[in-house]
């Protein structure tokens, strides 16, 4: 290709001024159909999750019509903007199978790990994002990226195992630095010189790995597993160093966003959460665009959401318990307000991916995002009538624009469908009543060959 990329020319035209336009992949990077890179590699397909606490106000959220062109009740209004890109699932169940209804815990654990927890301290085993990362996330700089807009570094719904939660990014400044700091390899940078420090680091790392082997001889079986995790983490670092020694493939739409200089204010007030969510989303979208990761997680509000409304004394969760059901509306108005803000954040998250051009479509076309929550009707902390979304077409493997009545089947069906779309050859997923081998056939595209 020409040594003068369009991006470089644009930069020159703007005299180096920071621009935040998304640049499409140039035709010269693509095959004739715009569905694969010129090198012949298929466009990468990515998987993401999005989480919000305390569900929706079903009375003003669930459309009456199923299928395409469904009606948009008031709380679903923001989704109206992205309806063509998403699927809405309603009437889902999280089956407890005789285990207690651990409020704010059972619902999301079943939705992410497929099994009903027995106790509050019973954290999920491997969540589906980690399972999928094992399939599609091995080659990127980060196997997964996780962020939360709650401002609390303990809020995560991604677990490698029960004792290993994925630590979420809470600070946009730190997240920027991690993604686009000095170790970021701009795939569109002219020229390439391997970093000699990376060579030295890689060599030293081999010795550190040897230390693990020595320790393994002295510990019991459980701790050996933890040492294995440590070893796996070192391998991951080794891979990162290797990548620094390899010229990355060009990605026209990839550009480091403007440096984040100021942290959003701490706090759970909705506008603060929304701003933190916006900033973290912007960084996450560009991380995916730049192929820094192919698996990502974003949390808007934690299970048992504690988002607040300025001047209103009860946070979201307390509101579900204590707010009077309005006689005219037949629902809790403040509670509905909180849910509506979450749905607005979800729509904005989807839009952020849809804005980035990639190939002859958008980044969202090559992404599948699964969004779930912890409860159905929050007022009674129900595990019935739960809702979930997917967004994106997963490189043509998923059809969108549908409202699907799940007919009181397990929420694990959404996760199972996602796993299959990501190429996992698994016959079923989930435990006991939450075990399923049934994809949502309505959203599975007929042909999976395009990017297989």
């Amino acid at each position, binding site marked *: 290709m020409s040594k003068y990329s369009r991006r470089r020319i644009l930069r020159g035209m703007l005299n180096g001024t920071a621009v935040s336009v998304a640049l499409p992949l140039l035709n010269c990077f693509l095959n004739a159909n715009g569905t694969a890179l010129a090198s012949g590699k298929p466009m990468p397909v990515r998987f993401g999750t999005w989480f919000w606490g305390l569900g929706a106000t079903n009375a003003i959220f669930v459309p009456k019509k199923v299928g395409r062109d469904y009606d948009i009740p008031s709380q679903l209004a923001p989704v109206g903007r992205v309806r063509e890109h998403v699927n809405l699932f309603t009437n889902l169940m999280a089956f*407890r199978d005789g285990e*207690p*209804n*651990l*409020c704010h815990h059972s619902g999301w654990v079943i939705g992410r790990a497929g099994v009903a927890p027995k106790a*509050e*301290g019973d*954290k999920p085993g491997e969540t589906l994002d980690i399972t999928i990362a094992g399939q599609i996330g091995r080659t990127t700089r*980060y196997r*997964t990226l*996780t962020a939360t807009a709650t*401002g609390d*570094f303990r809020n995560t719904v991604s677990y*490698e*195992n029960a*004792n*290993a*939660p*994925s*630590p979420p990014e809470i*600070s946009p400044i730190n997240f920027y630095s*991690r993604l686009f700091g000095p170790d970021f390899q701009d795939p569109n940078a002219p020229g390439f010189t391997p970093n*000699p*420090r990376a*060579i*030295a680091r890689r*060599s*030293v*790392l081999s*010795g*550190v790995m040897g*230390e*693990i082997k020595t*320790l393994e001889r*002295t*510990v019991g079986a*459980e701790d050996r597993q*933890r*040492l294995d*995790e*440590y070893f796996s*983490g*070192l391998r991951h*670092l080794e891979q*990162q160093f290797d990548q620094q020694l390899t010229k990355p493939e060009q990605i026209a739409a990839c550009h480091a966003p403007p440096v984040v200089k100021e942290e959003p204010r*701490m*706090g*759970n*007030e909705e506008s603060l959460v929304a701003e933190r969510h916006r900033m973290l989303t912007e960084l996450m979208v560009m991380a995916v665009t730049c192929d820094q990761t192919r698996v990502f997680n974003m949390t808007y509000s934690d299970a048992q959401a504690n988002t607040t409304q*300025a*001047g209103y*004394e*009860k946070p979201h969760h*307390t509101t579900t*318990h*204590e707010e*009077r059901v309005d006689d005219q509306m037949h629902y809790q108005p403040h509670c509905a307000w909180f849910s509506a803000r979450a749905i607005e954040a979800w729509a904005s998250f989807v839009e952020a991916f849809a804005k980035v051009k990639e190939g002859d479509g958008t980044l969202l076309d090559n992404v599948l995002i699964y969004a779930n929550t912890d409860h159905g009707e929050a*007022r*009674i*902390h129900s595990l019935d009538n739960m809702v979930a979304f997917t967004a994106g077409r997963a490189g043509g493997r998923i059809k969108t624009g549908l409202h699907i009545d799940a007919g009181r089947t397990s929420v694990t069906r959404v996760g199972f469908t996602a796993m299959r779309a990501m190429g996992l050859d698994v016959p079923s997923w989930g435990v006991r009543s939450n075990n399923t081998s049934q994809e949502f056939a309505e959203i599975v595209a007929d042909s999976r060959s395009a990017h297989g």
Partner: protein
Amino acid sequence: MSHSGRKFTVVATVSALVLAGGLVVGGHALFSRPGGRAPPPVGSEKRLRLITQEQYLNTLRYVFGPDVRPEVHFAAVQRVDGLLGVGTSFAGITDAQLEIYQQTAATVAAQVLSPESRGFLVPCKPASDERPDDPCAREFLKTVGRLLYRRPVDAARLTELVQEADQATVGLKSFYAGLEVVLEGLLLSPDTLLVVEHAETDPEHPGRLRLDAYSLASRLSLFLWNAAPDDELLSAAQSGDLLTARGLAREVDRMLASPRFETGVRAFFDDMLALESTRTLAKDSVIYPEFTSQTAQDSREETLRTIVDHLLTRHGDYRDLFTTRRTFVSPALAAIYQIPTGPGWTPYEFPADSPRSGLLTQVSFLALHSHPGRSSATKRGKALRELLLCQDVPRPPPDVDFSAVENPDPNLHTARERVGVHLKNPTCAGCHRVTDPPGLALESFDGAGVYRTAENGSPLDTSGNLDGKPFKDPVGLGLALHDNPSLGSCLVRRAYDYAVGAPTASRDRPVLRDLNKEFAADGYRLPELFRAIALSESFAAIAPERVRHRQSPSTVQAALSSGGTQPIVLAY
């Protein structure tokens, strides 16, 4: 606070203990139990603990100096049986964590080997800045490696490290850059970031296992200093002195007299009181405009300063922490306490007629266990039960019917009236009868911790009783808590768990019973308790390995209730 004054007090205290009885604390022999009536110590299983962020930072500070304090955010550890410190024995390790460790290591190594620091942090000067220098690299890596690994670096490994430094020096054309990359490796090493305990046969008691000397040194220093051992402690381990009764006592007394003990005590209470949550504590700025992020941050510091002042500087009775009127205030806290103050931190004593008395009435407790926009009698009562009395307050049982607490009557003005709804429902009443009475006493303070006498225009009734001891206001609640037998035994249990990094099991009953007796006999003094734990045979004894499992707090509570402590029985 007069830091030097506190140090003097602790030194004087410990010296007095040593002078008065050598290995005797509070009249109780710690090594030779009279008559041989005590059963052999069971000890705890050897552990693999993940070093915490604060332990890592403290260690860096002690090895490289106070300027080396990188901004880091290690992954959160889950609280197990009330302590993050116990959670480190179970915590897994993720790729993302290793990335954090690597980035931190790179930052630290760059700072240590920077032109500004290398002159005093590298104990030798290479013959050339651009070429390998084996003797200098070896000296640096041997010294630093021993302190970071908490034991000498194996000779073969040290040779490897020197070779790696040589190679990196050649590749990077700089001796210091080469050393920097190898230091990154040391800082990233499992020998630094994981505390792997090793056991050996106890020669004095065939058939029993004990920690080896270096593992004992690490367990001691993490417990008492919240940091890795220093050179002197490692030397005592190397010589074997630490494995003798006298040598161990000498080291423990030295550690108790060190300024690092204050850091250790702060870390323990930070963990026990879950004060890390103040990092994310925020209040509704419309409802509580006076409560800022600075208030949250200062509330943690106030509580820790009060604890250090009372327990170490004044060598006070632990129970009096809940009645003392002495505290420390900052401008941000003065706004909540509605008192005048100057800049910075100032010692302050609330007057005798003030409703403020003890830790329960400090902002950290009141605001942390409230909602963002209002107080919560239930959250405060639950925190008191769980954090201070080691009692388990269950979550709502399965299939709870929330209809009883939905749609409360808007004419109910006070928390007492609102939570009264819970008591009408048998499903809710069991737990709320336990949590709400102490919480309602603290309704004298709003969600930010500001004092009030009425809520929504209705006067507050703050009377109640704590496990049969009546009170009429927050001051009385503090007194009732002071006299609650579970207060001291809970501290003993938490301190022991924290020390060994494991949840209490029924097999620990004898050692807890002994420690409880000693703690009471010593007048509930913390340094004596920590000393007794560190010198107890159980602290260093290793139990045979078995299948590890986490016990639920209720299981532990049941075990302890038959061991002489007096936990409440929750009626539900």
